[in-house]
């Protein structure tokens, strides 16, 4: 099933990895492509060339060293806070759903939703910039009113896979959910 190629909404290829640990526990990992070395080089070179131009005009060496610092700090900031390497959805029947996203630096943000709070998992439509996209989301129950939906937790927010990938995840999630309820 990993042979099928998936793309995200902007056409970049992403990789979906489904792991079935048991009949009621599955793990889905959506990995985005890694940071390309060419992109890094382009950004770094542009900053450095700009710095060199300024240095050429002002003859101030602080400009050059600050350019090096800026690129280093910028890269660190990018991999620690911006670049999401992979997002994982762990569905455990009768226990809950765990959503985690790992950044390129290894930082991981985890959210765990208990099964008693979950109403359903659905695929929803949303207007994003100038297009309409599909996304997977978890509907949470309202504690006071069991039939109402209190809030929505969107899944795979940073990788934004296309519908064919979402349908695949959705189907296997529903299998587990229907069993556990």
């Amino acid at each position: 099933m990993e042979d099928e190629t998936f793309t995200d909404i902007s056409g970049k290829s992403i990789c979906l990895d489904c792991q079935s640990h048991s009949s009621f526990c599955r793990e889905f990992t959506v990995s985005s492509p890694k940071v390309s070395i060419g992109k890094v080089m382009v950004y770094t070179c542009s900053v450095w060339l700009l710095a060199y131009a300024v240095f050429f005009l002002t003859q101030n060496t602080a400009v050059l060293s600050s350019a090096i610092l800026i690129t280093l700090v910028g890269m660190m900031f990018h991999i620690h806070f911006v670049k999401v390497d992979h997002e994982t959805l762990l569905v455990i029947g009768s226990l809950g759903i765990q959503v985690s996203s790992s950044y390129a630096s290894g930082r991981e943000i985890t959210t765990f939703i208990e099964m008693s709070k979950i109403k359903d998992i659905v695929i929803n439509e949303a207007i994003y910039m100038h297009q309409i996209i599909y996304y997977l989301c978890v509907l949470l129950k309202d504690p006071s009113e069991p039939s109402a939906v209190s809030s929505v937790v969107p899944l795979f927010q940073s990788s934004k896979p296309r519908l064919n990938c979402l349908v695949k995840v959705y189907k296997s999630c529903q299998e587990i959910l229907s069993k556990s309820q």
Partner: protein
Amino acid sequence: MVLKIFFPQCCNRADSGLLVGRWIAGHDSAVVLAVIHYPFIPGQVKQYIQQMQAQSGVELSVLGSWSLPKEGQEGMESFLRDLSTIFPQERWLQISRQMGKMGFTCEILNRGQNGKAAQRRVKKEKKEEEVDSGEAEKDEEEEDEEKVIFVHYEQRKVMLSQLHPIESGDPDLKTDPPSELRQVFQTVALSQPLFFLDKYDDGPLKSTHWQSEGREASIIVELLKQASVPLCLLLSWMLSMWTWLCSIRIFSLYPLRFLSTKLSTCVQLSYRTEHMRTLSSPKAAAGHTQFMRKANMLVSVLVDVALGVLLMWWLYRDEHIAMLANTLVPAADHVAKELEQLLQWLMGAPAGLKMNRALDQVLGRFFLYHIHLWISYIHLMSPFIEGILWYGGLSACLGLTFALSLLSDMVALFTFHIYCFYVYGARLYCLKIYGLSSLWRLFRGKKWNVLRQRVDSCSYDLDQLFIGTLLFTVLLFLLPTTALYYLVFTLLRLVVVLFQGVLHLSVDFINSFPLFAIGLRVFRPYRLAEGVKFRVLCDEPGVALHLLMERAFDGRVVQPMEEAA
């Protein structure tokens, strides 16, 4: 339905025995808390559990048996099964593990309503994988078998984390039963008395559970706890004296009261008094947030005093005070000279602007006279400055914040002339703008109706119009001169305010910096954990499910846990 067993990691390699824990009602899950080892008398176990139940308030029970057979301990199967008749339970778990291959076998004996024990078997086989991470696996041969998830948790971290709801929380608000995970956390946290039984103690029962490694160090903690009681009493007595002193009538008279709200030293003093009152209150902190607030306060006070003592040590060494006092008067002189030059420049043609000469001269002379007054005042005071600094420096023993607030007050007093200039300039400018605006209305044949709060049209006499227009013209042509003085003195005032702002900012920073929380974050991150994280321990698909429950710092649990944290 899936049966969830929360199993402590420290019991992975425990000797065979009884599993003590709690069934969580309505959720089909069991929390294992400890393993009681074999040579025991059932009556004593029952008594012990009842005693623990009374102490902790958790419905403890014997969940089942745990066996990890060593050499020469074979054939215990029947014995284990017989145990279930001694400890009657709805369900009886029989978890066993082979030493060589580390296999977990879980057998669940269901006691039916008619007393006949129906038995279901769940077999779990497990490959040798990691030693310290327990695993459980499961076959899916039978259709109606009961599935089991083993969730491994670290007892100490779960116990010490603050995710479980605090007892004094509002029980009437939450009508629905608390969520499963929360109950698990609460169970582990409440069953602290169970963990006091040391494995080296010579008692009738031996058990395996988490136990603290460093009980010797806790003697110091206990001593500190004992010492803190008289200290708190002393502090609160001193505070009551202080508040009595502050509440004397003479302090509530008008000028003193007004002054005390303006002087930042007084503000800081009242702030610290409030802090000390919170710290010295004999009541224990209710709830996690309250405790954190108190701890942060205490650490900030200690750091503050330490910094203040450091400052004092620097000040009173090598005559630094005299040096400071000797530089202060020339500095004031220098500022006055610069101001005089600025006024001279303003009285000429500043930046090539042509001012109204007469008004310019009058204003300039007025301000020059003011500066002259100020300088003579400073010189009159100069012999006393060193003494003031010496005694003011003593306030640093109360904390760096006091020294900083005192400095801020002194700066305010030493730059009083700048403040006066600003007030004069602003008042003059305000009057002028006010006059101009009302005359502008007259110029257009309108007037401000006070009763209706709006501008109405009005027919003026010729004389009124003439005088008004004349005054308007005069004011308009004098405006640039006043505006220039106003602008310059506002900028000067702004510099002083900025300096004071920096001082106040640093004082607030020291007052409210959560140093304790940051220390806890670095050294004991699980104490501040925000949620849970599950990790699947097995990589082989279709074999088993065994989870490791960790505390996630960056994570969060949607809804129920966020309320608790």
